[in-house]
C-alpha cells in the first residue's frame, strides 16, 4: 500500500494559556482508530482541526499525501474542500430539511442537480434500511435512525477520511447495543481511514482496530484494544479499561466464552452477549475458595503492576483477567509474577448485556 495513503497528522493547537493539544496520528486506509479520552482531553479540538473548522498552530495534516493544513508552509484547505466526512456528536442534522434533503446536502453543495442528488440520497437511505424515513424531519427520528442519517449524509460525498464523534453517546443503553453491530457493518462500507472519537471505552474497544488514548492534550498510549485493556499504562487507562469484557453466548445462566464457561445471575438472557467484570470484584486467593462462588479456577499471575494505592494483576488461562487489589492484600498473599493462584468471581458481579 502507498505509504502516504490514509491520514497522517501532527496536531498542535492551544486553547487559552492552560491547555495545549499536541498529538500525532496515523490512520491507514480501511482501519478504524479510536481516540479515547476523558472530557476536556482535547477530543473535540481534534475533530475541529481535522475537519477544517479550527486551524493548526503548528504541525500538519495530510490525507492520502495531500496537505490540508501546514502553518509553516502557509497551507490551509478550508473545510468545504477537505473531503473529511464527519458524523458529529448528537449528529447535528439540519432540522429544517427532510431526511432525504439532509443526506443530499453534500451533493447539492457540490452543484449536483436536485434530481440526481435526491436519487443518490435515496439509494443511501435504502442501503442503511431507512428509505421509509425520507420525508421525515430530523426532530421525528429516534437516536438510532438519526445516527444512520448522519452516517449516510457524511458518506454520500465519498470522503477521504471519516470522523465519528461520540457516535453512540446520544443513544440509550438498549439502542447502543443494537446499533454497535450495525455501525460496525456500515463502517465497513467505507474504505478510507476511519476515526472514532469517544470517551467511552466500550465504544472504542468494539469499533476500533487501534486505540489512541488522549489525556490532557497528549497521547498517553497507543495499542490494540487488547493491549490497552490488558496492559494499561496510566491510572486513567487502567480505570477506563478496567472492565474485563468478554464476548460469549448465554444460555440458562451460563455464558460460554471460547471453551470456558462462567455462571451469571441473569438466567433469562439467551444468545450472543457481552459480559463485563469489574477488576475489583475479582477475588484472588492462594487456596481453593469455598462458599457460594461458582466461578473459580486455578491459574497463574502473569503480571503485577502498581498504580499508587492499588495493584493490578493479570491472570492467565483459561480466562485472562485483570484484577485489582490493595498493596496490603498483595503483601498478605505473598505472590509474585508466575505464582499459582485461585481466581473467583461471584455470578452477581458479572454484568451481561445482549450483543
Amino acid at each position, binding site marked *: 500500500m502507498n505509504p502516504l495513503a490514509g491520514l497522517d497528522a501532527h496536531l498542535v493547537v492551544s486553547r487559552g494559556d492552560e491547555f495545549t493539544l499536541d498529538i500525532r496520528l496515523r490512520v491507514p486506509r480501511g482501519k478504524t482508530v479510536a481516540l479515547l479520552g476523558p472530557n476536556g482531553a482535547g477530543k473535540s479540538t481534534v475533530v475541529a482541526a481535522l475537519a477544517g473548522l479550527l486551524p493548526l498552530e503548528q504541525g500538519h495534516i495530510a490525507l492520502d499525501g495531500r496537505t490540508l493544513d501546514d502553518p509553516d508552509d502557509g497551507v490551509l484547505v*478550508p*473545510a468545504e474542500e477537505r473531503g*473529511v466526512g464527519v458524523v458529529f456528536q448528537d449528529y*447535528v442534522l439540519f432540522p429544517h430539511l427532510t431526511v432525504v434533503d439532509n443526506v443530499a*446536502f*453534500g451533493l*447539492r*453543495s457540490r452543484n449536483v442537480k436536485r434530481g440526481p442528488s435526491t436519487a443518490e440520497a435515496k439509494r443511501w437511505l435504502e442501503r442503511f434500511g431507512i428509505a421509509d424515513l425520507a420525508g421525515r424531519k430530523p426532530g421525528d427520528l429516534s437516536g438510532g435512525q438519526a445516527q444512520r442519517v448522519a452516517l449516510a449524509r457524511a458518506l454520500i460525498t465519498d470522503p477521504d477520511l471519516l470522523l465519528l464523534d461520540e457516535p453512540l453517546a446520544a443513544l440509550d443503553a438498549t439502542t447502543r447495543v443494537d446499533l454497535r453491530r450495525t455501525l460496525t457493518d456500515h463502517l465497513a462500507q467505507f474504505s478510507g481511514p476511519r476515526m472514532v472519537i469517544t470517551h467511552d471505552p466500550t465504544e472504542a474497544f468494539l469499533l476500533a482496530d487501534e486505540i489512541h488514548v488522549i489525556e490532557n492534550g497528549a497521547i498517553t498510549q497507543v495499542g490494540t484494544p487488547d493491549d490497552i485493556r490488558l496492559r494499561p499504562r496510566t491510572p486513567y487507562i487502567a480505570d477506563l479499561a478496567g472492565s474485563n469484557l468478554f464476548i460469549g453466548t448465554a444460555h440458562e445462566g451460563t455464558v460460554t466464552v471460547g471453551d470456558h464457561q462462567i455462571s451469571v445471575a441473569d438466567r433469562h438472557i439467551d444468545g450472543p452477549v457481552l459480559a463485563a467484570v469489574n477488576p475489583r470484584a475479582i477475588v484472588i486467593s492462594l487456596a481453593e475458595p469455598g462458599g457460594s462462588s461458582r466461578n473459580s479456577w486455578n491459574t497463574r499471575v502473569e503480571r503485577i503492576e502498581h498504580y499508587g494505592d492499588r495493584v493490578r494483576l493479570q491472570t492467565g488461562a483459561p480466562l485472562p483477567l485483570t484484577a485489582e487489589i490493595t498493596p496490603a492484600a498483595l503483601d498478605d498473599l505473598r505472590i509474585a509474577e508466575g505464582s499459582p493462584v485461585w481466581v473467583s468471581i461471584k455470578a452477581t458481579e458479572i454484568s451481561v448485556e445482549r450483543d
Partner: protein
Amino acid sequence: MTSKSTSPRRRQQPPIALVILAVAGIAVFIVPLIGLLARTPWRDLPALLTSDVVVDALRISFIASIGATAISAVLGVPLAWLLARVEFPGRSIVRGLVVLPLVLPPVVGGAALLFALGRRGIIGGPLHQMTGLVLPFSIWGVVIAATFVAMPFLVITVEGALRNLDPRFEGAAATLGAGRWTVLRRVTLPMIGPSLAAGLALAWARALGEFGATITFAGNLQGRTQTLPLAVFVALETDRGAAVALSLIMVVISLTVLIVLRERWWRPL
C-alpha cells in the same frame, strides 16, 4: 385545567389586588380602541377611505415602510451577523449605537438626520453638489427616517437568533462541501428564518408607525412625504372623520399582521 400532579392541591386564588391592577392594565389597551370604534363614521367610511388624502398617505406609507424594511434587511442582516459572529474592538459600542434609535426620541433622530443628510448637512451637502439629490422633504427622506427607527428591531432580533444558533450546524454544512454562501443560504438563513421573519415584521410595523423622525426630516407634504400617521395628525385638526378612518386603517393593518404572524412566527421568540 388540572395538572397531572399527584398531590391533591387546591387551586390557589390569585390575589384580588393583582387582578384589579391587571384588569386596569387590559383597559389601557382596550379603551382607546373602543373610543376609536365609537367615533367611526361608518356611513361615510367608503368615501373617506377613497379620499385623496387617505389614498396618498396609504401610498406613501406603503412605499416607505416596505422600502425601510427592505433596506433594514439588506444592511441589518449582515450587521447582525457581524455583531453575533465576529469579535472586533468596540463591538459593544456598535451594539449600543444600533439600539440607540429605540430609546432616542424620534424627533431627535430626525433632527440628527437633517444635520447629517440635509442640503447643508455634512454628507447631504456634498451629495447635493455632486448629484443634485436632495434627501429631506422627499420620499427618500421618509424611507431613511423610517429605516433609522426600524432597523434596530431587525438587527437585535436576528443577532439574538444567530447567537442562539449552534455554530456546529454551519460547521457540519462546511464539512459537507458547502461554501460560505451556500451555508448562509441553505443553513443559516433558513434556521433563523422564524426570527428573521419576526424581525422583518417588527421593523415593518415600526416603520409604518413612524412619526417624529419623519416629520422632522422629511416634512409633511401630502402626496410626497405625508404618511398615514402624519395624515392622522393633520386630519385631527381639520377633518375628524378622516382622522378616524385613517386610524382605523392602521389598526386593521396592525391587527392583521399580528394575527398572521402569531401562529407561525412569534412562538419562537
